[in-house]
């Protein structure tokens, strides 16, 4: 494997730079995926039949905490990558751990939110609006949960093998994924919660 020392570690082999580019293309596919889900949601948003509407359901408190957690975790994963480039394995691990814990907190609040809705009789089956709400939020939440497992797997590999072209590449790609989830969340925050609460 040829290593090009003039580039950052995560880009340093041809395979590595192909992987990063490939992941960008994959994110290119995630955009129509979420765009479709948003479209479905916006089509359905007023179709709450006999069930509750968004303004009756949403509470700003937990959503703000979720937003805070996800936005800060995007910052900490950035710090982790920065530490990685400087070769600080320990700092990198700490920042990744903080990132994942915040992700976990996000998932916890989301699950709690889902339980509250169901408790109030607002289920997946109640109305077109709720179906689309649960599926949009759920898809994002599933991405975060998957990201948690993925990030944990990468941490184990860095812990065992240290920072090398392969692990650096994985961590960098993971950071792209995590930032992407953050961006999607900003859209959810604006078009689902803020719009619903207005």
């Amino acid at each position, binding site marked *: 494997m040829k290593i090009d020392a003039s580039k950052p570690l995560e880009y340093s082999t041809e395979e590595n730079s192909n992987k990063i580019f*490939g992941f960008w293309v*994959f994110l290119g596919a995630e955009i129509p*995926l979420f765009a*479709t889900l948003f479209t479905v949601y916006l089509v359905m948003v007023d179709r709450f039949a006999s069930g509750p509407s968004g303004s009756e359901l949403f509470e700003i408190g937990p959503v703000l905490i979720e937003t805070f957690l996800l936005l800060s975790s995007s910052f900490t994963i950035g710090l982790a990558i920065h530490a990685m480039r400087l070769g600080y394995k320990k700092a990198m691990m700490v920042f990744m751990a903080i990132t994942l814990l915040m992700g976990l907190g996000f998932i916890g609040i989301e699950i709690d939110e889902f339980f509250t809705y169901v408790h109030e009789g607002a289920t997946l*089956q109640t*109305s*077109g609006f709720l*179906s689309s709400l*649960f599926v949009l939020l759920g898809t994002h939440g599933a991405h975060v949960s998957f990201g948690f497992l993925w990030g944990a797997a990468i941490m184990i590999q860095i812990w065992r093998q240290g920072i090398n072209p392969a692990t650096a590449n994985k961590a960098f790609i993971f950071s792209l994924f995590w930032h992407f989830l953050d961006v999607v969340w900003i859209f959810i925050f604006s078009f689902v919660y803020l719009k619903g609460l207005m």
Partner: protein
Amino acid sequence: MDLDKFKVHGEPLIYGAMISIALATIGILVGLTYFKKWGYLWREWLTTVDHKKIGVMYILAALLMLFRGGVDAMMMRLQTAAPEMKFLDAQHYNEVFTTHGLIMILFMAMPFIIGLMNVIIPLQIGARDVAFPRLNAVSFWLFFMGAMLLNISFVIGGSPDAGWSAYFPLASLEFSPTVGNNYYSLALQISGIGTLITGVNFIVTILKMRAPGMTLMKMPMFTWSVLITNIIIVFAFPVLTVALALMMFDRLFGSQFFTMANGGMDMLWANLFWVWGHPEVYIVILPAFGIYSEIIATFSKKNLYGYTSMVVSMLLISLLSFLVWAHHFYTMGQGVMVNSFFSITTMAIAVPTGVKIFNWLFTLRKGRITFTTPMLYTLAFIPIFTIGGVTGVMLAMASADYQYHNTMFLVAHFHYVLIPGAVFAVIAGFHYWFPKVFGFRLNERLGKHAFWWIIISFNVTFFPLFFLGLMGMTRRMYTYSEETGFGPLNMLSFAGAVGLAIGFVILVYNIYWSTRYMPRDTTSDPWDGRTLEWATPSPIPAYNFAIVPKVQTRDAFWSAKQDNIPLFEDKITKIHLPNNTGKPFILGVIFFFLGFFLVFSMWIPAIVAGIGIIIMLAAMSFDRDHGFYVSAEEVIATEKKLRGETV
């Protein structure tokens, strides 16, 4: 557990199919054991990450599916051959046209094309491999397992029966209570994920792994068409993913996306389906344009006319393909403005398509044409596809469509587009590239026999349908009375279908015959080719190119031969290759079971399978397999052997 839901009742045909499937499976298992081929199968095929072998497996699976979809087609044509036929009942007919459409498009045409592109693209761009060889194996196994999941539906639980477009509310639990449409959502989902991964893989391969000197505008036309196709895949398939997921939620978990009450919206399905479905049609047709371009240039011994306009027209088509979806439901009450918009965008596609047709004709003009089998298919494609295109413009007029909508006219139209535009192309490509992969040609005499059977019978089968449509015979109608007068033309069409079947049998027989008797090719360039794939020895060594070629012109191999522009100047050095791995196959098998358990709402096994998938993904992530090197001496020895001493 309630075993009854696995059973399919009542049809002697289906019992016959069950028995033959069981016997064939036992036969294969016994045969593999008897000839001690398990190890060979595992080492050489199931675990392979070689793009050429993966391509061959795609093509084999596609041929198998062509047979399956073809049997469905024959059954439909037989059932409607005469008035009041009693061969299939209404339900069975519904299942047959649904699976026929699904299989032909998703499990035959598309995988056939993906197979050809797997084999050829890395060779055409002078690369040693695809960007992500292991992911490529994952793609294949997801496609294959999805296809198998759909195929077992007719013996276990019942096939989908709401048409390949699965319109709601027809496809809802209320009106399609069997598990058939559960199979639909899951089988398509699994294979669709595989296709999406292929899309990513080939975009990276083509954009990042071309031989030095091959700029975008020096790429062969097939490579261009595949690049554009994969871009469409990456943008269109996520829409299908979402649509199928919502369908699954509606059917398995009782959500209200496409229901008629509680705020559901059936038109949402129609829109989502066709936002994917129309581009899908171009996913199978654009690579065909690429294949034809290569074949026309090779067999007229000329550069392709209007290279740049070919590229631009494909880009335009891919863009427009996303703007026409609502032409599939002009009659479902969407208003004049919407219909007009989609009518205009649809007709606009005729312009870039026309440009391509003229480019091909100009390439042929004054060319030194040789009428080989692939060239014959290409030449036949041009007029037949034009008929499909012209009738397409007729359908594109929203007001006129109120007349032909969902009649046999439509069925004739899309077969006139899809069969020359995809099936003839893959057959032509198959004949054209066969000697590259296997080192010998298919027999030309048998090839031409099959060609004439197929071309003539195709027109006999489908031309009458235009008239049947204008006479008012609707699509998906399982029987009709004597008085309608539909009988004679339908009988003619059935006769054509028999002829088509004979043609395909000759084609397959040709593969068998040629494997046994055709002389082996020693030149590895049997057609006097123009592009880089013909610069490798045949059969192709695992590493493709001993020396990575340096490209200076379009049709680089042709200039190398004509103008002595050197391709291979570097020295042979050691070559890196990936190791085989069984994980993609195992992952595919688990996906199959996950799909199966979800179809039958068996939650606990489904959760176990889901965990299995996560474990497999983790195992793939933790893999520290860096492949291996083939030493320079070994490469030199292989090249000498394959080229008969001339390196």
